[in-house]
C-alpha cells in the first residue's frame, strides 16, 4: 500500500473541508429534491475520496428495492436501470455495518451480493456505505475503484462516514420535503376546490370538476361520479376520468345489484353499497378487467339533509415512479372532506337547474296561455232567435280548451268546443292548428256546408280532414276531442258531429234532458290515421230539433272532472244543476253559464283543480 505524503494529505484535507462546505450549502440551498441534488452529492463524494466511479442508490421501503438516484459515469445507452430487490433480512444486515467491502462481504450478506453480482458489476461497486438515519435505511453510497490505491486510509474512512451522514440527511430532508410539498398541495387543493366547484351552476360542469379535483387531490389515475336516482333506485354515471372509462360500464347501476345473480362485477356492487349504506369503502379491483385500476376508494356524497346524493370514486393512487399504492386512512379522510364540499356543489347545481327549468316552463306556459287566450273569442255573435254565451276559465296548467261560434254565412252558424290532450305549448299549438283547419274547412263553401249535399256527410268528411291534419301535426299522445254543431236557425235544426268529446246536454223547456252524440261519438281527432278510423269508430252526425226555451250546454272535461275534497267528481251534478239553471227567473245563456260555473266552484270547495273550465251555452229564445 502506498501511503500519501503528509503534504498531499493536508492538501486533500483542505479540499475535503471545502467540498464538505459545498455539500452543506447544497443541503441548505433550498434544493430539496434529491433527484436533482444527488448528482452534486455523488460528485463531492467521489472527488473528495478520489474515486472514479460510484453511485447513490435510494431505498424504497414500500416495495423493498434499491434504485439508482445518481451514477458516475452516467449511462446514456438506454440500458435497463439497475433494480435491486432487498428483503427485510438484507436491510437488517446492511444496517449493521458502517461500510461493506464487496469483495469480502460479511457472512450475512454473502448471499445478497452473490444474487446481485451482475448489478454490482454494472455500477462497478467495490465499497458500499449504508446511508441511514437511526435504524432506518435510506440508501447506499456505492464507490468504485480509488485513484492510485486499492483501499481507503483510516482518515478517509472517517471522512466517508461524515459524507455518508450528510447524504443521509439530504435524503431524509428530501423525503420530508416531498411529504410537506404533497400535503401543502393537497391542503391548497382542498381549500381551493370549494369555491371553484360551488360556483359551477351546470350539473355537468360540476360533475366534471368534482371528479377532476378528486383525482388530482388523491394523486389518483382515475375517478368517477355517480348520482342517485331515487325514483328508479339506481345510481347513474355522470362523469368519469378518463372519459373513456364510462364506456366500460353500464350507464346505471341498480342499488340492489347482485354480483353473482346479475353477472355484474363486484365493482358495481361496491359502488351500489356505498350509495345504499353511505360508508366509505376501499376495494381491490384488480380482477375487474374493465376498470384497468388495481384499487378504488369510494365515498358517499351527502346532501344538506344527510341523504346520499351519489358516490364519488377514485382509483389507483400513484406514487413517484408510477407505482400504484393503496389509499391510506388519511386519504379516506381527505376524500370524505372533499365529498362534503362536492355535495354542496352538486346540490347547488341541481337546485339551480331545477329553478332554471321551472322558469323556462313558466315562460312556456305564459306563452301558451297567450296563444290559448287568443283562440278564445272575446265576444260571440248575435244569432237571431238565439242566445249564445261562453266561458273559459284557466285553472292550473294551461290546457288546450277551445270554443267558438262561427258565422258561416247569412244566418248559418257553426258552434264548436274542443279539448286537446296534454298541457302547455304543445297543446296550445295543436289547438291553434285545429282552429286553423276548421276555419279553412268551413270557408270552402259559402254556407259552411254545400246545400246540395248531405250536411251530415259533409261534417263527417270535415272530421276526417281535421283528423288527418292533427294526426300529421302531432304525436301519438296528442289528440283533440271535438264537437261541432251546424246551426240552421231557419229550421231550428242542429246537425252535430262528435269526435270523442263529452256529449253536450240539452235541457228542454219541459225540463226533459237529452245528451247529444253520446251514442255515435267517433274517435278523437289525430289519434289514428284516416284509414284506421272506420275500423275503430267512424264519424257520424245526427240532427236535433230545437224548440223555444231549449238550452244546449257544451262543456269540457274540466267541468265534469272537477273534484271536491272528498275526491268525488262533478259529472253527476251537471244535469240537475243545468235543470236548476233552466228554471232561473231570467234564464239567459250568460246567466245559465254563471249558475253552472258557481255550482262547480261551490262543489269544488277547497280542492285543487288542474284543468281549465270551459262552457258554451246556446239557448233558443
Amino acid at each position: 500500500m502506498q501511503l500519501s505524503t503528509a503534504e498531499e494529505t493536508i492538501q486533500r484535507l483542505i479540499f475535503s473541508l471545502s467540498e464538505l462546505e459545498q455539500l452543506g450549502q447544497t443541503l441548505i440551498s433550498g434544493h430539496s429534491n434529491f433527484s436533482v441534488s444527488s448528482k452534486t452529492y455523488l460528485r463531492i463524494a467521489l472527488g473528495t475520496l478520489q474515486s472514479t466511479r460510484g453511485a447513490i442508490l435510494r431505498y424504497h421501503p414500500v416495495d423493498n428495492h434499491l434504485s439508482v438516484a445518481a451514477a458516475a459515469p452516467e449511462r446514456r445507452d438506454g440500458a435497463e436501470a439497475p433494480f435491486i430487490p432487498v428483503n427485510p433480512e438484507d436491510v437488517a444486515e446492511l444496517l449493521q455495518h458502517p461500510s461493506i467491502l464487496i469483495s469480502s462481504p460479511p457472512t450475512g450478506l454473502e448471499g445478497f451480493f452473490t444474487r446481485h453480482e451482475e448489478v454490482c458489476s454494472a455500477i462497478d461497486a467495490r465499497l458500499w456505505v449504508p446511508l441511514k438515519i437511526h435504524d432506518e435505511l435510506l440508501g447506499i453510497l456505492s464507490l468504485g475503484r480509488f485513484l492510485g490505491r486499492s483501499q481507503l486510509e483510516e482518515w478517509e474512512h472517517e471522512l466517508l462516514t461524515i459524507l455518508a451522514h450528510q447524504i443521509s440527511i439530504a435524503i431524509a430532508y428530501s423525503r420530508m420535503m416531498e411529504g410537506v410539498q404533497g400535503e401543502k398541495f393537497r391542503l391548497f387543493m382542498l381549500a381551493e376546490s370549494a369555491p371553484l366547484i360551488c360556483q359551477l351552476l351546470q350539473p355537468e360542469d360540476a360533475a366534471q370538476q368534482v371528479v377532476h379535483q378528486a383525482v388530482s387531490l388523491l394523486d389518483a389515475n382515475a375517478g368517477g361520479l355517480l348520482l342517485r336516482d331515487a325514483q328508479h333506485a339506481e345510481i347513474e354515471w355522470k362523469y368519469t376520468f378518463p372519459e373513456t372509462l364510462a364506456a366500460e360500464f353500464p350507464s346505471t347501476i341498480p342499488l340492489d345489484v347482485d354480483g353473482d345473480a346479475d353477472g355484474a362485477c363486484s365493482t358495481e356492487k361496491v359502488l351500489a353499497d356505498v350509495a345504499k349504506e353511505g360508508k366509505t369503502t376501499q376495494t381491490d379491483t384488480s380482477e375487474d378487467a374493465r376498470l384497468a385500476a388495481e384499487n378504488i376508494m369510494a365515498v358517499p356524497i351527502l346532501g344538506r339533509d344527510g341523504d346520499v346524493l351519489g358516490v364519488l370514486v377514485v382509483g389507483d393512487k400513484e406514487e413517484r415512479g408510477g407505482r400504484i399504492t393503496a389509499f391510506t386512512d388519511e386519504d379516506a379522510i381527505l376524500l370524505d372532506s372533499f365529498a362534503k364540499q362536492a355535495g354542496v356543489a352538486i346540490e347547488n347545481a341541481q337546485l339551480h337547474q331545477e329553478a332554471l327549468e321551472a322558469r323556462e316552463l313558466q315562460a312556456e306556459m305564459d306563452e301558451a296561455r297567450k296563444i290559448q287566450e287568443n283562440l278564445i273569442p272575446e265576444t260571440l255573435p248575435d244569432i237571431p232567435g238565439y242566445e249564445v254565451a261562453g266561458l273559459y276559465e284557466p285553472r292550473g296548467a294551461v290546457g288546450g280548451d277551445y270554443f267558438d261560434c262561427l258565422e258561416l254565412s247569412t244566418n248559418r252558424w257553426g258552434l264548436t268546443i274542443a279539448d286537446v290532450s296534454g298541457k302547455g305549448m304543445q297543446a296550445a299549438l295543436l289547438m291553434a292548428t285545429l282552429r286553423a283547419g276548421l276555419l279553412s274547412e268551413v270557408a270552402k263553401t259559402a254556407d259552411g256546408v254545400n246545400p246540395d249535399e248531405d250536411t251530415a256527410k259533409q261534417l263527417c268528411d270535415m272530421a276526417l280532414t281535421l283528423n288527418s291534419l292533427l294526426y300529421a301535426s302531432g304525436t301519438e299522445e296528442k289528440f283533440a276531442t271535438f264537437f261541432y254543431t251546424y246551426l240552421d236557425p231557419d229550421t231550428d235544426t242542429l246537425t252535430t258531429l262528435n269526435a270523442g268529446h263529452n256529449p253536450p246536454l240539452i235541457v228542454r223547456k219541459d225540463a226533459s234532458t237529452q245528451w247529444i252524440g253520446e251514442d255515435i261519438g267517433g274517435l278523437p281527432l289525430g289519434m289514428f290515421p284516416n284509414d284506421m278510423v272506420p275500423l275503430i269508430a267512424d264519424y257520424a252526425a245526427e240532427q236535433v230539433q230545437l224548440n223555444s226555451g231549449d238550452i244546449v250546454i257544451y262543456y269540457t272535461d274540466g267541468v265534469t272532472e272537477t273534484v271536491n275534497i272528498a275526491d268525488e267528481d262533478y259529472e253527476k251534478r251537471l244535469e240537475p244543476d243545468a235543470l236548476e239553471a233552466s228554471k232561473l227567473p231570467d234564464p239567459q245563456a250568460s246567466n245559465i253559464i254563471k249558475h253552472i260555473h258557481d255550482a262547480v266552484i261551490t262543489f269544488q270547495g277547497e280542492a285543487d283543480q288542474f284543468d281549465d273550465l270551459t262552457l258554451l251555452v246556446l239557448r233558443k229564445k
Partner: protein
Amino acid sequence: MRDSYFLAYATEEKEASVLLNKFDIQIRDAQDYAVIETEGYLNDALGEALSAKAHTLIQDGQTRLVINLEKTALINSIGISILIEIIETLDERNGTLNFCGLSATQERTFRMMAIAKYAGIFPDEQSAIDNL
C-alpha cells in the same frame, strides 16, 4: 439531471397508468429557446416524459425553456414535484423557465407552491417566449 436508465425503469413500471390516461408532448425547439407543450393529465407518467424531454434539451445546451400547459387541465402533486425538479435543474445551469397556458387555479397553485418564485408565469406562449 436524470439518468436515462432510470427513466426506462420508471416508464416500464407505469404502463398501466399510461394505458388509462393518454398524453402527448410536443417540442418546438428554436435556436435560442425551446417550447414544451403538454397534453393530458400531468401525473407521474406525463411528468416523467416531460422531465425526460426537458433534461434532453438541457443536456443539449438549451437552458431557456417554456412549458405550455394549455392542454393540461389536471395536475397532481407528483406532477408539481417534477416541475420543481426541472426548475432546480435549470437553476443549476443558470437557465430560465417560463410557464404559460395555466388555468386560474393552476396559477394560484403554482404561486402557493412557490413555483412562481423561480419561474415566470405568462398568459400565452408568445409572451412567455418574449420574457425568457
